[in-house]
Protein backbone atom coordinates (compact mmCIF):
# COMPACT_ATOMS: atom_id res chain seq x y z
CA UNK A 1 0.00 0.00 0.00
CA UNK A 2 1.25 3.46 -0.85
CA UNK A 3 -0.17 5.45 2.07
CA UNK A 4 1.85 4.06 5.05
CA UNK A 5 5.06 4.38 3.05
CA UNK A 6 4.01 7.91 2.11
CA UNK A 7 3.15 8.83 5.70
CA UNK A 8 6.61 7.62 6.76
CA UNK A 9 8.26 9.55 3.94
CA UNK A 10 6.40 12.74 4.89
CA UNK A 11 7.91 12.64 8.37
CA UNK A 12 11.32 13.25 6.77
CA UNK A 13 12.51 16.85 6.43
CA UNK A 14 12.77 16.57 2.65
CA UNK A 15 12.40 13.99 -0.09
CA UNK A 16 11.25 13.09 -3.57
CA UNK A 17 7.68 11.96 -4.24
CA UNK A 18 8.46 9.17 -6.70
CA UNK A 19 6.11 6.82 -4.82
CA UNK A 20 3.34 8.61 -6.71
CA UNK A 21 3.85 8.01 -10.44
CA UNK A 22 2.23 11.29 -11.50
CA UNK A 23 4.37 13.20 -8.96
CA UNK A 24 7.43 11.48 -10.45
CA UNK A 25 6.29 12.65 -13.90
CA UNK A 26 6.21 16.24 -12.59
CA UNK A 27 9.59 15.68 -10.84
CA UNK A 28 8.09 16.72 -7.48
CA UNK A 29 9.82 16.83 -4.14
CA UNK A 30 8.80 18.16 -0.74
CA UNK A 31 10.36 20.16 2.06
CA UNK A 32 9.15 20.59 5.60
CA UNK A 33 9.49 24.30 6.30
CA UNK A 34 8.77 24.62 10.02
CA UNK A 35 5.52 22.66 10.37
CA UNK A 36 4.50 23.32 6.80
CA UNK A 37 4.73 20.81 3.98
CA UNK A 38 5.87 22.56 0.79
CA UNK A 39 5.79 20.84 -2.59
CA UNK A 40 8.40 21.86 -5.13
CA UNK A 41 7.89 21.54 -8.89
CA UNK A 42 11.07 22.44 -10.78
CA UNK A 43 10.59 24.02 -14.17
CA UNK A 44 10.73 21.63 -17.12
CA UNK A 45 9.95 22.19 -20.79
CA UNK A 46 7.39 19.37 -20.56
CA UNK A 47 5.20 21.47 -18.22
CA UNK A 48 4.55 24.16 -20.80
CA UNK A 49 1.00 24.75 -22.03
CA UNK A 50 1.49 27.82 -24.20
CA UNK A 51 4.65 29.71 -25.19
CA UNK A 52 6.49 30.80 -22.05
CA UNK A 53 3.74 29.64 -19.67
CA UNK A 54 3.11 26.56 -17.57
CA UNK A 55 0.04 24.49 -18.41
CA UNK A 56 -2.81 25.24 -16.00
CA UNK A 57 -3.33 21.49 -15.67
CA UNK A 58 0.18 20.95 -14.27
CA UNK A 59 -0.42 23.73 -11.72
CA UNK A 60 -3.81 22.19 -10.85
CA UNK A 61 -2.14 18.80 -10.47
CA UNK A 62 0.48 20.28 -8.13
CA UNK A 63 -2.22 21.95 -6.00
CA UNK A 64 -4.21 18.73 -5.72
CA UNK A 65 -1.10 16.80 -4.63
CA UNK A 66 -0.24 19.48 -2.04
CA UNK A 67 -3.75 18.97 -0.65
CA UNK A 68 -3.59 15.17 -0.77
CA UNK A 69 -0.21 14.96 0.96
CA UNK A 70 -1.21 17.49 3.61
CA UNK A 71 -4.28 15.35 4.38
CA UNK A 72 -2.16 12.17 4.60
CA UNK A 73 0.41 13.90 6.84
CA UNK A 74 -2.43 15.06 9.15
CA UNK A 75 -3.62 11.51 9.90
CA UNK A 76 -2.76 10.13 13.35
CA UNK A 77 0.49 8.19 13.36
CA UNK A 78 0.25 4.42 13.66
CA UNK A 79 -3.40 4.09 12.68
CA UNK A 80 -4.58 2.37 9.54
CA UNK A 81 -4.70 5.03 6.85
CA UNK A 82 -7.75 5.86 4.77
CA UNK A 83 -7.82 6.04 1.01
CA UNK A 84 -7.99 9.74 0.22
CA UNK A 85 -9.78 10.88 -2.93
CA UNK A 86 -10.77 14.31 -4.15
CA UNK A 87 -14.47 14.73 -4.90
CA UNK A 88 -14.52 18.39 -5.93
CA UNK A 89 -11.51 20.43 -7.04
CA UNK A 90 -11.93 24.13 -7.88
CA UNK A 91 -8.87 25.95 -9.19
CA UNK A 92 -8.58 29.74 -9.53
CA UNK A 93 -5.80 30.98 -11.79
CA UNK A 94 -4.50 34.40 -10.72
CA UNK A 95 -1.28 34.86 -12.64
CA UNK A 96 0.39 33.03 -15.47
CA UNK A 97 2.88 30.35 -14.49
CA UNK A 98 6.31 31.49 -15.63
CA UNK A 99 9.09 29.13 -16.69
CA UNK A 100 10.55 28.75 -13.20
CA UNK A 101 10.18 26.69 -10.02
CA UNK A 102 6.69 26.54 -8.52
CA UNK A 103 5.89 25.81 -4.88
CA UNK A 104 2.60 24.79 -3.31
CA UNK A 105 1.21 24.39 0.19
CA UNK A 106 -2.18 23.39 1.53
CA UNK A 107 -4.03 24.14 4.72
CA UNK A 108 -6.82 22.10 6.18
CA UNK A 109 -9.97 24.11 6.84
CA UNK A 110 -11.73 21.22 8.51
CA UNK A 111 -10.28 17.79 9.27
CA UNK A 112 -13.22 15.45 9.54
CA UNK A 113 -13.13 11.66 9.65
CA UNK A 114 -15.05 11.34 6.37
CA UNK A 115 -14.54 14.70 4.69
CA UNK A 116 -11.53 17.03 4.72
CA UNK A 117 -11.88 20.57 3.33
CA UNK A 118 -8.62 21.96 2.02
CA UNK A 119 -7.30 25.20 0.58
CA UNK A 120 -4.12 25.02 -1.50
CA UNK A 121 -1.98 27.77 -2.95
CA UNK A 122 0.86 27.89 -5.48
CA UNK A 123 3.46 30.61 -6.03
CA UNK A 124 6.69 31.36 -7.83
CA UNK A 125 9.42 33.38 -6.18
CA UNK A 126 7.24 35.63 -4.07
CA UNK A 127 4.75 33.90 -1.83
CA UNK A 128 2.51 36.93 -1.50
CA UNK A 129 1.88 36.76 -5.24
CA UNK A 130 0.12 33.41 -5.68
CA UNK A 131 -0.27 32.17 -9.25
CA UNK A 132 -3.15 29.80 -8.44
CA UNK A 133 -5.24 28.50 -5.57
CA UNK A 134 -7.56 25.55 -5.15
CA UNK A 135 -10.41 24.58 -2.91
CA UNK A 136 -10.57 20.81 -2.61
CA UNK A 137 -12.99 18.53 -0.78
CA UNK A 138 -11.48 15.12 -0.08
CA UNK A 139 -13.45 12.07 1.02
CA UNK A 140 -11.71 9.48 3.19
CA UNK A 141 -12.44 5.77 2.77
CA UNK A 142 -11.34 3.95 5.92
CA UNK A 143 -10.35 0.31 5.78
CA UNK A 144 -12.88 -1.98 7.48
CA UNK A 145 -11.87 -3.07 10.95
Amino acid at each position, binding site marked *: *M*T*SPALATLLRQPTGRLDL*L*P*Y*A*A*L*LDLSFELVGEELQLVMPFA*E*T*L*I*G*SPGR*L*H*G*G*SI*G*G*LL*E*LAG*LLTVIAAQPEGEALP*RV*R*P*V*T*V*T*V*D*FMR*EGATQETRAVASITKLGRRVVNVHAQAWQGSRDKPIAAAHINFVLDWPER
Partner: protein
Amino acid sequence: MSEFADQVSQFMGPFLGRVPHNKQLGLRFIANGSNWVELQLPYAPHLLVDPDHGIWASGPIITLMDTCVGMASMLTRGAFEPHATLDLRTDYVRSPKPQATVTARGECYRMTRQIAFVRGLAHDGDPADPIAHVTGTFMFAASKLAGGWQ
Protein backbone atom coordinates in the same frame (compact mmCIF):
# COMPACT_ATOMS: atom_id res chain seq x y z
CA MET B 1 -19.80 23.81 -39.39
CA SER B 2 -18.32 27.26 -39.81
CA GLU B 3 -15.23 27.89 -41.87
CA PHE B 4 -13.32 28.65 -38.68
CA ALA B 5 -14.43 25.34 -37.12
CA ASP B 6 -13.22 23.50 -40.25
CA GLN B 7 -9.92 25.34 -40.03
CA VAL B 8 -9.61 24.38 -36.37
CA SER B 9 -10.30 20.71 -37.18
CA GLN B 10 -7.23 20.70 -39.43
CA PHE B 11 -5.12 22.59 -36.95
CA MET B 12 -6.05 20.92 -33.67
CA GLY B 13 -4.40 17.51 -34.00
CA PRO B 14 -0.91 18.79 -34.91
CA PHE B 15 -1.32 21.68 -32.42
CA LEU B 16 -1.95 19.32 -29.48
CA GLY B 17 1.27 17.47 -30.30
CA ARG B 18 3.21 20.74 -30.18
CA VAL B 19 2.04 21.72 -26.67
CA PRO B 20 4.71 20.13 -24.49
CA HIS B 21 2.57 19.22 -21.48
CA ASN B 22 -0.27 17.83 -23.61
CA LYS B 23 2.30 15.80 -25.51
CA GLN B 24 3.84 14.53 -22.27
CA LEU B 25 0.45 13.24 -21.09
CA GLY B 26 -0.52 11.89 -24.51
CA LEU B 27 -3.64 13.98 -25.27
CA ARG B 28 -5.32 13.25 -28.62
CA PHE B 29 -7.71 15.32 -30.69
CA ILE B 30 -10.87 13.46 -31.71
CA ALA B 31 -13.44 15.89 -33.12
CA ASN B 32 -14.96 19.34 -32.89
CA GLY B 33 -18.08 21.30 -33.80
CA SER B 34 -18.59 25.04 -33.87
CA ASN B 35 -18.64 25.34 -30.05
CA TRP B 36 -17.43 21.97 -28.75
CA VAL B 37 -14.30 19.81 -28.75
CA GLU B 38 -13.67 16.16 -27.99
CA LEU B 39 -10.25 14.98 -26.80
CA GLN B 40 -8.88 11.74 -25.42
CA LEU B 41 -6.33 10.78 -22.82
CA PRO B 42 -5.22 7.15 -23.10
CA TYR B 43 -4.28 5.38 -19.88
CA ALA B 44 -0.62 5.33 -18.88
CA PRO B 45 0.90 4.19 -15.56
CA HIS B 46 2.44 7.62 -14.94
CA LEU B 47 -1.04 9.19 -14.78
CA LEU B 48 -1.79 7.41 -11.50
CA VAL B 49 -1.38 8.81 -8.01
CA ASP B 50 -1.90 5.48 -6.25
CA PRO B 51 -0.69 2.54 -8.33
CA ASP B 52 -1.75 0.05 -5.62
CA HIS B 53 -5.40 0.99 -6.07
CA GLY B 54 -5.19 2.13 -9.69
CA ILE B 55 -6.30 5.65 -8.70
CA TRP B 56 -5.76 8.39 -11.28
CA ALA B 57 -4.16 11.64 -10.25
CA SER B 58 -6.38 14.67 -10.59
CA GLY B 59 -3.78 16.63 -12.59
CA PRO B 60 -4.06 14.72 -15.87
CA ILE B 61 -7.86 15.03 -15.82
CA ILE B 62 -7.60 18.77 -15.08
CA THR B 63 -5.08 19.15 -17.92
CA LEU B 64 -7.38 17.24 -20.29
CA MET B 65 -10.48 19.22 -19.33
CA ASP B 66 -8.74 22.61 -19.25
CA THR B 67 -7.34 21.99 -22.73
CA CYS B 68 -10.69 20.74 -24.01
CA VAL B 69 -12.87 23.59 -22.74
CA GLY B 70 -10.14 26.13 -23.63
CA MET B 71 -10.27 24.95 -27.23
CA ALA B 72 -14.08 25.09 -27.15
CA SER B 73 -13.81 28.73 -26.04
CA MET B 74 -11.46 29.54 -28.90
CA LEU B 75 -13.82 27.87 -31.39
CA THR B 76 -16.78 29.83 -30.07
CA ARG B 77 -14.73 33.02 -30.16
CA GLY B 78 -14.17 32.36 -33.84
CA ALA B 79 -10.57 33.56 -33.73
CA PHE B 80 -7.17 32.57 -32.37
CA GLU B 81 -7.03 35.09 -29.53
CA PRO B 82 -5.02 34.84 -26.33
CA HIS B 83 -7.10 33.65 -23.42
CA ALA B 84 -6.46 32.35 -19.92
CA THR B 85 -8.34 30.11 -17.52
CA LEU B 86 -9.98 32.14 -14.77
CA ASP B 87 -11.32 29.17 -12.85
CA LEU B 88 -12.14 25.54 -13.36
CA ARG B 89 -14.17 23.28 -11.10
CA THR B 90 -14.02 19.51 -11.49
CA ASP B 91 -16.51 17.17 -9.80
CA TYR B 92 -15.37 13.56 -9.72
CA VAL B 93 -18.60 11.61 -9.78
CA ARG B 94 -16.90 8.20 -9.91
CA SER B 95 -13.50 6.60 -10.53
CA PRO B 96 -12.51 5.66 -14.07
CA LYS B 97 -12.37 1.95 -14.88
CA PRO B 98 -8.84 0.52 -14.55
CA GLN B 99 -6.64 1.38 -17.51
CA ALA B 100 -9.48 3.11 -19.35
CA THR B 101 -9.01 5.72 -22.03
CA VAL B 102 -10.66 8.91 -20.80
CA THR B 103 -12.65 10.95 -23.32
CA ALA B 104 -13.43 14.61 -22.69
CA ARG B 105 -16.15 16.63 -24.32
CA GLY B 106 -16.26 20.35 -23.59
CA GLU B 107 -18.40 23.19 -24.87
CA CYS B 108 -18.61 26.92 -24.55
CA TYR B 109 -22.23 27.76 -23.74
CA ARG B 110 -21.92 31.52 -23.45
CA MET B 111 -19.45 34.07 -24.82
CA THR B 112 -19.37 37.67 -23.66
CA ARG B 113 -17.03 40.50 -24.56
CA GLN B 114 -14.36 39.26 -22.15
CA ILE B 115 -15.49 35.96 -20.70
CA ALA B 116 -16.19 32.48 -22.04
CA PHE B 117 -18.40 30.25 -19.89
CA VAL B 118 -17.64 26.58 -20.40
CA ARG B 119 -18.74 23.16 -19.24
CA GLY B 120 -17.73 19.63 -20.02
CA LEU B 121 -17.62 16.04 -18.97
CA ALA B 122 -15.17 13.17 -18.98
CA HIS B 123 -16.16 9.54 -19.47
CA ASP B 124 -14.48 6.18 -19.93
CA GLY B 125 -16.59 4.80 -22.73
CA ASP B 126 -20.19 5.86 -22.11
CA PRO B 127 -20.96 9.59 -22.18
CA ALA B 128 -24.20 8.84 -20.30
CA ASP B 129 -22.14 7.57 -17.35
CA PRO B 130 -19.45 10.24 -16.84
CA ILE B 131 -16.54 10.10 -14.43
CA ALA B 132 -16.26 13.88 -14.04
CA HIS B 133 -18.09 17.10 -14.77
CA VAL B 134 -16.38 20.46 -15.15
CA THR B 135 -17.50 24.06 -15.28
CA GLY B 136 -15.27 27.06 -15.72
CA THR B 137 -14.56 30.45 -17.19
CA PHE B 138 -11.89 31.83 -19.51
CA MET B 139 -10.82 35.46 -19.87
CA PHE B 140 -10.19 37.03 -23.24
CA ALA B 141 -8.37 40.35 -23.52
CA ALA B 142 -11.20 42.69 -24.53
CA SER B 143 -8.74 45.21 -25.95
CA LYS B 144 -7.67 42.67 -28.57
CA LEU B 145 -11.20 42.29 -29.91
CA ALA B 146 -11.71 42.94 -33.56
CA GLY B 147 -14.48 45.42 -34.28
CA GLY B 148 -17.96 44.06 -34.68
CA TRP B 149 -17.84 41.34 -32.02
CA GLN B 150 -21.16 41.19 -30.18
